[in-house]
């Protein structure tokens, strides 16, 4: 897979311009300017919003200050999804930068998970990574690694260091000869619905390589019958005939899952008009 290093690098470098605005209802006196930031698609919001939180918290009532959370057009942001997934689901390419509202009150704990420290993000990331390896290699690779390898992956992600992250990640992406991944770790997201995750092998029983189309027809057959859906991975409309194993190796997020977003074309167009 080394010849495709350029692709891995491009995926890693994907960024989204975001405009963070403090919620109007929580400002006590002077209104702060919105904050603009380029954020990596592959990371998680709590890893990039620490400074923003500190800055905007100066403009609110200290006594009412609770845990910070983000909102997009009335929808609380699930920080435990990679930023790129959230944007592909909730954002719209017609209106960049992506506008998010910052809140410090009324944390919607029935909708989103708490995140009071980086440890929570690390534990979430490591457990997703572990689950991916359970699907690919029955946890054999991740359990065979040393703690410092896990740490190196985590700090590579935190500090946006491709060269720190990938040498270790490569081992999780390896398979030898006929011994392919047991299953492809994937999750399919649609607006408002829990994500879909099932067991799906990289090859058919007859030994044919599965494509993205095969996966979608298996996991969401009803959606594949309609033609007004767009399928995004990392903001890219991936050709349906792409080999699934190759996608898993190159288009997975750092947590080793292929996060696939399905949006309806009609809702995208109406959001563009805004």
């Amino acid at each position, binding site marked *: 897979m080394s010849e495709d290093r350029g692709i891995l690098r491009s995926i890693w470098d994907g960024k989204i311009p975001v405009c963070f605005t403090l919620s109007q209802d929580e400002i006590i006196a002077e209104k702060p300017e919105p904050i603009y930031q380029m954020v990596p698609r592959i990371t998680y919001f709590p890893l990039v919003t620490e400074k923003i939180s500190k800055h905007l918290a100066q403009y609110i009532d200290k006594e009412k200050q609770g845990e910070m959370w983000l909102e997009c057009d009335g929808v609380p942001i*699930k920080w*435990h999804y990679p930023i790129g997934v959230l944007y592909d689901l909730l954002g719209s390419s017609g209106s960049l930068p992506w506008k998010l509202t910052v809140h410090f009150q009324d944390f919607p*704990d*029935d*909708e*989103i*998970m*708490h995140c009071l420290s980086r*440890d*929570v993000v*690390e*534990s*979430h990331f*490591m*457990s997703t990574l*572990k*689950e991916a390896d*359970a*699907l690919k290699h029955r*946890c054999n690779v991740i359990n065979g690694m040393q703690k410092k390898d896990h740490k190196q992956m985590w700090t590579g992600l935190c500090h946006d260091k491709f060269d720190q992250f990938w040498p270790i990640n490569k081992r999780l992406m390896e398979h030898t000869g006929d011994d392919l991944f047991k299953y492809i*770790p994937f999750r399919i997201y649609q607006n408002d*619905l*829990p*994500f879909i*995750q*099932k*067991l799906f092998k990289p090859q058919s029983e007859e030994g044919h390589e599965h494509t993205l189309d095969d996966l979608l027809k298996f996991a969401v057959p009803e959606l594949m019958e309609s033609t007004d859906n767009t399928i995004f991975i990392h903001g890219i409309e991936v050709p349906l005939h792409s080999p699934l194993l190759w996608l898993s190796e190159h288009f997975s997020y750092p947590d080793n899952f292929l996060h696939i977003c399905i949006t309806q074309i009609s809702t995208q167009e109406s959001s563009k008009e805004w």
Partner: protein
Amino acid sequence: MSLGVISEEECFGFMEDFVQRSKKSSEPWDLMEHGGKLYIYLKSWKVLSNQKDHSKVSDNSSDRISEPVETETDHTICSDEFSNACILFEYYVIYSESYSVPVLYFNVYNSNGGLVSLSDVWDLVPAHYKERLEENRWTFITQSEHPYLGRPYYQLHPCHTATLMKDVTSMTSSNACSNYLLSWLSAVGPVVLLSLPLTLASDT
């Protein structure tokens, strides 16, 4: 089953058996279905006997392995005396295809319906478990997304379940009434105040 893992089909069978057994107990579990997948569910009120000592918790059954301090028989109404210390547990057992084991999801609500935070959940964990789990605090109980509801629930992480059950299943395999779920839940449940009535394990 020798590796401590079970197939989805086996798990659904154990769920049906488990729910059947629990029907005779004071806290019957419900068998539910989501998109063709079976799972089991229990709603359980508990009364904290002393707010400062959360490890002493009573529930509405007297026949427990842990030692209940008070007995609360009313499921829905708590007396004023206990109103601040009356909490609701919701437990779900869902099969994980990734790990080939069942997973326990739960939420804890205070008497006002507010979600109890993870650090307060840790305060509820009986002291003798807490000591042992302290090292894995960030990985043993975590918040995660409920696979069917899409909302936050606490989860006992499934990555150690197979290792635990490898030993348990090899010991009980000759026992005709053994139910994987029963063995597993009676081992890990008490950590999060889920103590199974002894009657569940009896054959009749």
